[in-house]
């Protein structure tokens, strides 16, 4: 496809972990008991991570290595001579995607060249024994936040160097032999727990600055709150073949448009808000046939691109914070998969590796940038449509057009957390706005279609009448009113059925070509049915009126124009209907623009969509104005020609042109203005149900209707004048 500038595929892989390490604490000054547990927080609640951390006894022994020997809780990793208090850092899980490096760089401008870095030879060598089938380089987001904290309690022990030496003797150990050489090492815990603890100090160690996803430098904590580099540590990538696939959060949409998020379970003591599914296997459990190992090889950053990346579809780089609604606290993802916060991608692997991990159909989306688009205009729309058409010919894709994207706030009520506001990158918002617009657009298009068709039919009808011998028509009407009435009603219905079927057919063809959705057809059907009702109602109402004028005829001379309107209602009715539709459009569309602009105009996307829609709307309004004008011109001049004989008679019995003009003017006002008012009323009713009712909206409608009325009166005035001259 030549018109596609960039095609950047993306494969969403799930949540992965990277190289795991331990961190150490400096030696304390005296014999101590050190216990550490780990917390992760979503910003509101803290969760202690189960089965992590542990305890450590450091016991003074003068002259022995660094002056301490130790006892470490069994089953918690490496034990080595002279080791400092050391704790395994919990695994942290991070959203990882696969991309095509070059295309992605072109699309986003983010430097992903680190993906080309070689796998560290040392690390690769140490894991070669497991015979992983594939070594996968991964790069990670350097400016990401990992919500992790160590909670350490440090207790001074009533225990001196002599007691250590004495204990070693009891265990048949030499002074220079470490405790763990003893066969009774395992039982030592009980013995040491009986030592009196003199005082206990709680220390909170914030690890977020030290820990990055997938890889971080080893560090050691000094009790003064600072960190320093550490050479003695354990590390491993043995857990990297395990990952979690997540399903989207199952939101409940409330009436007020907020989303409700329920906790559906927990993982290591941390709440889980979406379904997660564990995949793969740990090297610790299975020492051969490992499908892959992840090797962190470098970093990427999106900081300087946050503005432009708002426009990046799927929002995989978007980092707008999620905040608590009441106090503005910033919320975080927990380190476990299943958080309610939709996170940006923390890890990136190559598309080939992603395909290897995911197997069949690895690509979730391909983001295209269409060539040569600088602004959103007709040409841009055409180009995009061409690409869409080409893609739909290939088939099997869901196509989403994101004209521009923007973070737009969504309010969620999260169980156990409260109401939070999260920025959703635009696809969500775009969908909402365009959905909202779709409904109104469908309404507008359907009404417009109806107007056009009624116009054609109305035109044809008048043609037919004007062609008829006028005298014959008059006497037809004059002699067989009741018969003609029925005939006209049936004729009206036939015309509406005819135009309804015609319009439906057009819409259906558009539907077959996927240009309109099925809702359009439904809305159209409703409009046609409503149209059916109107002539019936009017004819029934008007009929009764005619009878009453009949009855009181001798008593009072009714207004000439009124008698005429009632008498010729069959000719007027289609035109009347059409003007109702036209006024509806003229009131509803600006009202809609007005309201939608107020609610969505403040996001980039909203502005963009409105721009696009504005063009569409303008086209429809101009066409409507054209149709409305020609409708009035056509109807009134044909109407006058049909009544030529009547006009001549009035002239012959002494009426001046002025008198005839006046009467026809009143007559026209008598049906045009009501049609405007009805159209306006319908628009206000629909606007205030679909949108919101405001005084401004009513004011706007009244202004528009007033303008329409004045315009049409000027038009009608001149039209009658010209036509009367011709007669």
């Amino acid at each position: 496809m030549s018109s596609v500038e960039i095609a950047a595929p993306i494969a969403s892989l799930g949540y992965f972990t990277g190289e795991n390490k331990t961190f150490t604490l400096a030696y304390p000054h005296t014999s101590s008991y050190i216990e550490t547990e780990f917390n992760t927080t979503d910003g509101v609640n803290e969760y202690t991570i189960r089965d992590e951390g542990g305890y450590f006894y450091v016991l003074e022994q003068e002259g022995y290595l660094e002056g301490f020997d130790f006892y470490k809780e069994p089953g918690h990793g490496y034990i080595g001579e002279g080791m400092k208090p050391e704790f395994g850092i919990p695994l942290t899980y991070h959203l990882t995607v696969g991309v095509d490096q070059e295309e992605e760089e072109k699309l986003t401008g983010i430097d992903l060249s680190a993906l080309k870095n070689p796998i560290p030879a040392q690390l690769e060598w140490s894991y070669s024994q497991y015979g992983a089938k594939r070594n996968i380089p991964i790069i990670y987001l350097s400016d990401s936040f990992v919500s992790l904290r160590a909670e350490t309690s440090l207790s001074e022990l009533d225990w001196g160097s002599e007691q250590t030496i004495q204990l070693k003797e009891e265990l048949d150990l030499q002074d220079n032999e470490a405790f763990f050489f003893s066969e009774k090492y395992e039982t030592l815990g009980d013995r040491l727990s009986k030592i009196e603890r003199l005082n206990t100090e709680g220390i909170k160690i914030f690890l977020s600055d030290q820990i990055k996803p997938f890889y971080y430098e080893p560090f050691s904590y000094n009790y003064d709150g600072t960190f320093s580099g550490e050479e003695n540590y354990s590390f491993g990538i043995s857990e990297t073949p395990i990952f979690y696939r997540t399903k989207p959060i199952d939101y409940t949409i409330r009436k007020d448009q907020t989303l409700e998020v329920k906790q559906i379970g927990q993982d290591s003591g941390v709440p889980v808000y979406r379904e997660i599914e564990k995949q793969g296997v740990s090297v610790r459990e299975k020492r051969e046939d490992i499908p892959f190992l992840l090797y962190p090889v470098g970093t990427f950053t999106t900081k300087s691109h946050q503005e432009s990346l708002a426009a990046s579809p799927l929002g995989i780089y978007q980092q707008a914070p999620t905040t608590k609604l009441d106090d503005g606290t910033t919320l975080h993802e927990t380190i476990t998969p299943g958080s309610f916060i939709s996170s940006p991608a923390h890890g990136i692997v190559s598309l080939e590796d992603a395909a290897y991990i995911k197997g069949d159909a690895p690509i979730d989306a391909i983001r295209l940038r269409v060539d040569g688009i600088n602004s959103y205009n007709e040409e841009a729309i055409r180009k995009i449509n061409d690409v869409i058409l080409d893609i739909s010919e290939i088939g099997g894709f869901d196509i989403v057009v994101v004209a521009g994207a923007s973070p737009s706030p969504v309010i969620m009520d999260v169980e156990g957390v409260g109401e939070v506001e999260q920025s959703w990158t635009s696809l969500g918002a775009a969908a909402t706005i365009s959905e909202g617009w779709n409904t109104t657009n469908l309404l507008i298009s359907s009404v417009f279609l109806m107007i056009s068709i009624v116009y054609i039919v109305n035109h044809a009808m008048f043609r037919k009448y004007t062609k008829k011998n006028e005298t014959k028509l008059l006497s037809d009407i004059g002699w067989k009113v009741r018969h003609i009435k029925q005939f006209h009603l049936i004729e009206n219905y036939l015309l509406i059925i005819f135009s309804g079927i015609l319009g439906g057919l057009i819409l259906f063809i558009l539907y077959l070509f996927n240009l309109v959705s099925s809702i359009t057809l439904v809305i159209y059907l409703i409009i046609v049915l409503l149209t059916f009702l109107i002539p019936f109602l009017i004819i029934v109402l008007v009929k009764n009126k005619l009878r009453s004028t009949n009855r009181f005829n001798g008593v009072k001379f009714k207004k000439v124009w009124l008698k005429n309107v009632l008498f010729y209602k069959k000719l007027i009715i289609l035109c009347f209907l059409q003007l109702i539709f036209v006024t509806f459009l003229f009131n509803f569309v600006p009202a809609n623009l007005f309201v939608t602009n107020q609610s969505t105009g403040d996001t980039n996307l909203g502005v963009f969509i409105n721009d696009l829609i504005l063009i569409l709307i303008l086209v429809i309004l101009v066409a409507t104005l054209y149709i409305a004008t020609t409708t009035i011109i056509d109807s009134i001049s044909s109407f006058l020609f049909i009544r030529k004989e009547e006009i001549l008679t009035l002239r012959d019995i002494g009426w001046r042109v002025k008198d005839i003009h006046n009467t026809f003017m009143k007559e026209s006002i008598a049906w045009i203005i009501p049609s405007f008012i009805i159209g306006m009323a319908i628009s206000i009713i629909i606007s205030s149900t679909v949108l919101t009712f405001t005084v401004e909206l009513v004011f706007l409608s009244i202004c528009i209707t007033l303008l329409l009325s004045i315009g049409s009166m000027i038009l009608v005035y001149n039209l009658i004048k010209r036509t009367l001259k011709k007669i």
Partner: protein
Amino acid sequence: MILLKNINVTYPSLEKPILKNINLHIKTGEWVSLVGPSGSGKTSFLKVISGKLDTVEGNVIIHETDINGLSAHKRHEFIRRHVSTVYQQFRLLPQFSVLENIMLPLIPHENKKRIQSRARELIDEVGLTHRVTHFPHQLSGGEQQRVAFARALITDPSILLCDEPTGNLDTNNRDIILELLTQIHKKGKTIILATHDEIVAKKGKNILTFHEEDVHKGEVVL
């Protein structure tokens, strides 16, 4: 009084004049019948008097006013006051009742209540009192024509032009119309009536015969 001097009528689409060099004097209260074959110019002659033609040469003097010399507007106003016409096709408006049709000529000009009482008198005169609220399609041809007469008389014209008023009626209705015309004549109105019907024509005191070939030469005083 109607005085026609050197009248020539040519229709724009025709080469020869339809009426040629007519000089005629019709005194007030006369009843003149116009006879002659179709297309001989009877209707055109009536249109000359009712000022409906724009292509008239000569003087059309009605009650000392040369209407051919008046502006279209003034002529229309003058004719409205002095001349009324009854047509073969009645030309009633279907959307109006009998009473309303009769009132119609004066609606733009006068107070409705006054018109209405005049219209009611006229309805009585033409013998349609029981039909006041009916509509034209509910009446017979003869009745419709009587409504047309009443409508013509509502302006109290001194001159009544009738263009084949009985052409669409049976003899019975024709006689009723003739009786009506006699009464109108008795009230001193000038009647000029074009007809094919010999009986109707003979009711007139003077009969003016139209021939297809230029008949109307020389001076005629009726």
